[in-house]
């Protein structure tokens, strides 16, 4: 089976633009998602029901529905309402990139919040007791002990979340964005060569995954050095 590499090579700019868009969407979604996840996680482990239950409901609904449905609801669903179209948010919501990043950020915030909440709950008791013994206020306790500790210990699982997000960005192609998968679809529509189109896309995603895995290994070595097995 011979693949038409020539044609792929000629259309490489299409794919490279796709890579740029994929990375852009990925970074924005992850940044916003994590920023939202931290307060959400704190709400999830809070002792007051008023904070705990809304957060639980949010993560339950977001994690219980497919990403595709959430994406369609944000992109096509919201635009259906006249009120939304007249609102000052419209210039943002009319952009496919904004809608996609919004939907992805909401999705990752729910998963990351659960992750962080689990990490917060499994904080070694000694750390909290020591902080209290030193007379730290609740705010200081969270700021200097709990959050940094929880964020560090969540790193391995968060790396999984980031990798999953990379795969999820391929859904952006379904709402007109020309990311890596979008580039493959455009290529396939023009030349009717599905193998070449999608294998190339797959290889690019694999390469990106490997790079991210290495990046996280480095991050773990830096931030989780204190948990590594002792080198004798």
């Amino acid at each position, binding site marked *: 089976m011979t693949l038409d590499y020539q044609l792929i090579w000629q259309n490489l700019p299409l794919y490279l633009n796709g890579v740029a868009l994929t990375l852009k969407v990925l970074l924005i979604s992850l940044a916003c998602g994590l920023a939202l996840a931290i307060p959400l996680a704190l709400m999830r482990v809070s002792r007051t029901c008023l904070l705990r239950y809304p957060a639980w409901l949010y993560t339950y609904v977001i994690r*219980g529905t497919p990403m*595709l449905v959430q994406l369609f609801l944000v992109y096509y*669903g919201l635009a259906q309402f006249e009120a939304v179209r007249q609102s000052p948010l419209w210039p943002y919501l009319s952009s496919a990139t904004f809608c996609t990043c919004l939907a992805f950020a909401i999705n990752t915030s729910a998963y990351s919040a659960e992750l962080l909440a689990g990490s917060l709950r499994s904080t070694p008791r000694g750390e909290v007791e020591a902080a209290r013994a030193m007379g730290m206020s609740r705010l200081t306790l969270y700021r200097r002990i709990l959050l940094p500790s929880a964020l560090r210990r969540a790193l391995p699982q968060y790396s999984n979340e980031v*990798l999953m997000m990379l*795969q999820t960005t391929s859904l952006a192609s379904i709402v007109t964005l020309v990311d890596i998968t979008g580039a493959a679809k455009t290529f396939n529509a023009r030349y009717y060569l599905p193998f070449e189109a999608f294998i190339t896309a*797959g290889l690019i995603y*694999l390469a990106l995954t490997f790079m991210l895995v290495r990046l996280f290994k480095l991050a773990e070595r830096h931030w989780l050095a204190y948990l590594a097995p002792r080198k004798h």
Partner: protein
Amino acid sequence: MLHGYGSSILDGAWLSVSLALLAMALAIGLGLFGAACRLSPLRWLAGLGEVYATVVRGIPDLVLILLVFYGGQDLVNRLALALGYQQYIDINPFVAGVCTMGFIFGAYLSETFRGAFLAIPKGQAEAGAAYGMSGLQVFWRISLPQMVRLALPGFTNNWLVLTKSTALISVIGLQDMMFKAKNAADATHQPFTFFLAVAALYLLLTSVSLLLLRGVEQRYSVGFKAAEL
């Protein structure tokens, strides 16, 4: 309220569920095989399992679905012709969906099962060998039942992800509830209504799954006391 599209969406829901069940059955088979490969003392077999897991987890589901649907058909055609089989074997979207999803989640499950197998205390297998059980007997009678309990949390997670991923099969024309909702949305120009309905159905599906699997976890954990934290 649903402009008459309600029953067609429910038909689609049934298709989604049956696709998920069949895909999971395939995934369990592939997962067990994959885990066995990765735990095997033969290096090339372990490497093969590693490659399977890495490649599948590194490529988006959507790309794999499109590749299997268009490329897979081409492959089957060539294979059939090479084997001298003139009749055309059709791979409809349902089959393509089951095979792709089964293949993808087989990789994830192989990781889950591998972790579960590794967590079984080594003494169990040793005791089995001391009794004179063959490798296969040890696997079937000792390791597997214990592995189920340990794998259930990861398995539950994978099942939930699988049921939600089936929404993607709508892009290759499978008439699941996502496809039906899109049709309805296109015809009535009310996408919010229909996608909200589909979201509610998925939420119902995941909730029921969670309850059932928690029940299974209880049953398999009978006689096992968790550590007092």
